[in-house]
């Protein structure tokens, strides 16, 4: 079932057209807006994730694409065709449900054949395609079992096969790995990525797990309170968050609140609440550049260096004492108690000797390693 649609992983590469477009989509439930003016363009063949905390409207957005919900306003296009009046059973999309929603009265085989039978496909063709789908998810030997006789991970595979066998234009995945334990989840992430590469289908996945979104996706839309806060590649989202929410939600970060004292297109001078001066190189977010007002500086733990002496001019630094060590396997994070009363998380470089508790430490970072974001929350 491999298709040979060429697809595009690069951020700036040739645009092959959109599989799904959401235009100013709103969804109101009982007077409460779950989705407020979402615009999305999902490219053909890409692995697209909708990421956000629970209640941000991400699942509703997916259900709007699948057709289980109708938008209150706005338009949803699939390969340029408006889908708003098309019921779910005529849309060329298939869904992998969070709870799998396997049919308990049917065997694994019959579950997978369900969609093909409805299409009135011939018996032999159905058999071949079901076998192929079972092979794809490595479930051949379980064909005759009932869903209740399978483990969670196996049910997940059946749900995937049941959707994929219909060769949808777009595969929708609603928190597909949410119910699996950590180890199985990691293994399934790899398999999802492999499946996506082999099939060349457009995958749209909803998840609240930022690590999962970062590792699997070509592009990510971060949603909050019914809106898309930012859309971009994993590195854009991680390295260049546009809002305080995105900076906090994706990865670990330190936030320092302050006020802009001086602005230049290449440099911002910011004074923190405690009166300390910081320099930040502004980045183009597509929004209006920051020139004044309350901001929050975001510095990732791995961008900060620790040293025993104050740094040379031109670098940002704060001073404090070691408070806690957090051993994370691949690296060690430490929490600094700053003289200003706040705490700062710093990733210790490899081989860094653990300082004695009462040694004064300087946490240093370059202006280009931090971001200034509007302090909107």
């Amino acid at each position, binding site marked *: 079932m491999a298709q040979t649609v060429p697809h595009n992983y690069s951020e700036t590469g040739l645009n092959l057209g959109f599989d799904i477009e959401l235009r100013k989509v709103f969804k109101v439930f009982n007077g409460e807006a779950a989705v407020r003016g979402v615009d999305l363009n999902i490219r053909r063949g890409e692995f697209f994730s909708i990421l956000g905390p629970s209640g941000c409207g991400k699942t509703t957005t997916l259900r709007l694409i699948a057709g289980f919900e109708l938008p209150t306003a706005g338009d949803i296009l699939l390969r340029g065709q408006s889908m708003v009046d098309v*019921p779910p*059973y005529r849309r060329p999309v298939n*869904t992998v449900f969070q709870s799998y929603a396997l049919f308990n009265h049917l065997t694994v085989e019959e579950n997978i054949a*369900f969609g093909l039978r409805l299409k009135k496909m011939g018996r032999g063709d159905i058999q071949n395609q079901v076998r192929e789908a079972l092979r794809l998810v490595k479930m051949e030997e379980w064909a005759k079992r009932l869903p209740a006789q399978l483990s969670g991970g196996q049910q997940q595979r059946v749900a995937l096969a049941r959707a994929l066998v219909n060769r949808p234009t777009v595969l929708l995945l609603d928190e597909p790995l949410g119910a699996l334990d950590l180890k199985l989840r990691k293994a399934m992430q790899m398999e999802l990525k492999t499946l996506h590469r082999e099939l060349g289908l457009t995958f749209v996945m909803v998840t609240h797990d930022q690590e999962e979104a970062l590792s699997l996706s070509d592009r990510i839309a971060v949603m909050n309170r019914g809106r898309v806060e930012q859309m971009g590649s994993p590195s854009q989202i991680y390295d260049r968050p546009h809002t305080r929410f995105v900076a906090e939600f994706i990865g670990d970060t330190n936030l320092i609140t302050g006020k802009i004292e001086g602005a230049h297109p290449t440099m911002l001078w910011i004074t923190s609440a405690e009166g300390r001066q910081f320099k930040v190189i502004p980045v183009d977010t597509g929004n209006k550049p920051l020139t004044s007002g309350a901001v929050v500086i975001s510095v990732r733990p791995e961008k900060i260096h620790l040293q025993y002496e104050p740094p040379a001019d031109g670098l940002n630094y704060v001073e404090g004492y070691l408070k806690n060590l957090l051993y994370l396997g691949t690296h060690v994070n430490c929490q600094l108690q700053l003289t200003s009363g706040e705490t700062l998380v710093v990733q210790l470089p490899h081989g860094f000797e653990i300082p004695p508790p009462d040694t004064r430490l300087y946490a240093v970072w370059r202006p280009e390693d931090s971001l200034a974001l509007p302090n909107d929350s």
Partner: protein
Amino acid sequence: MAALPESQPIDRPKHFVWQMWFSVLMFGFMYLPIFVLGFYSFNDAPNSATWAGFTLRWYSKFFQDDRILNALFDSLKVAFSAVAISAVLGTLMAVGLARYRFPGKRLYQNVTYLPLIIPDIAIAVSTLVFLAAVSIPLSLGTIVAAHVVFCLAYVALIVSTRIGNLNPYLEEAALDLGANPFQAFILVLLPELAPAIISGCLLAFVLSMDDFLIASFTAGGGTNTLPMEIFSRLRTQVKPDMNALSVVLMVASGVVAIVSETIRYRGEQKRIRH
């Protein structure tokens, strides 16, 4: 008896404790009369409490009694019709209540289950008064109608419970795979609900077969259900062939009830791991 403090470990002695004796007493109180009845159904004495030897003649006697067989036939007709109607209506009602929102839904839901609480005599009298008021002549059909009232409640209750435990996304999964709403209902929802529907029907069947009160109020001339026939014979005297018939009825009801519970339990087990 004072409640034990919760932290104290419960260390029961192995021999009989008072709870055990209490249970034995309760079960004895409930089931001893039935055993006595069963015992006398094998008694060769025509109408006395003295034991005159083992016989099966009371069993063979009622099987040759035309009036009893006719009454049994009437009862079966009523039970099958009432259950068939209730199965369809009850299932649709349960699905409708679970899947759709409409004004007055809560009220509707509570009214549905009302026949489970209302005393049979109240249903019987009010049905009779109603039928008289709209001048519908009493017949076998009126018993069926009255039985549908409570059969429907049982079927709807059991099917509703099952729907409540069902994965709410099953129908959406069917739609997603290309089934229209009707196909989703027939191909997915109905098979998933089948154990509950069957179990509800069997329970309703037993209740309809056993009902005396409602049937006796709503039966027309010439119709006579089995419980009515038994009652009319008992009014004069207790005959051993009625003992035998009661034993047969109880065993049959018991078997149906056990089958019904087994089906429901199996269905739940199948579903329990998603």
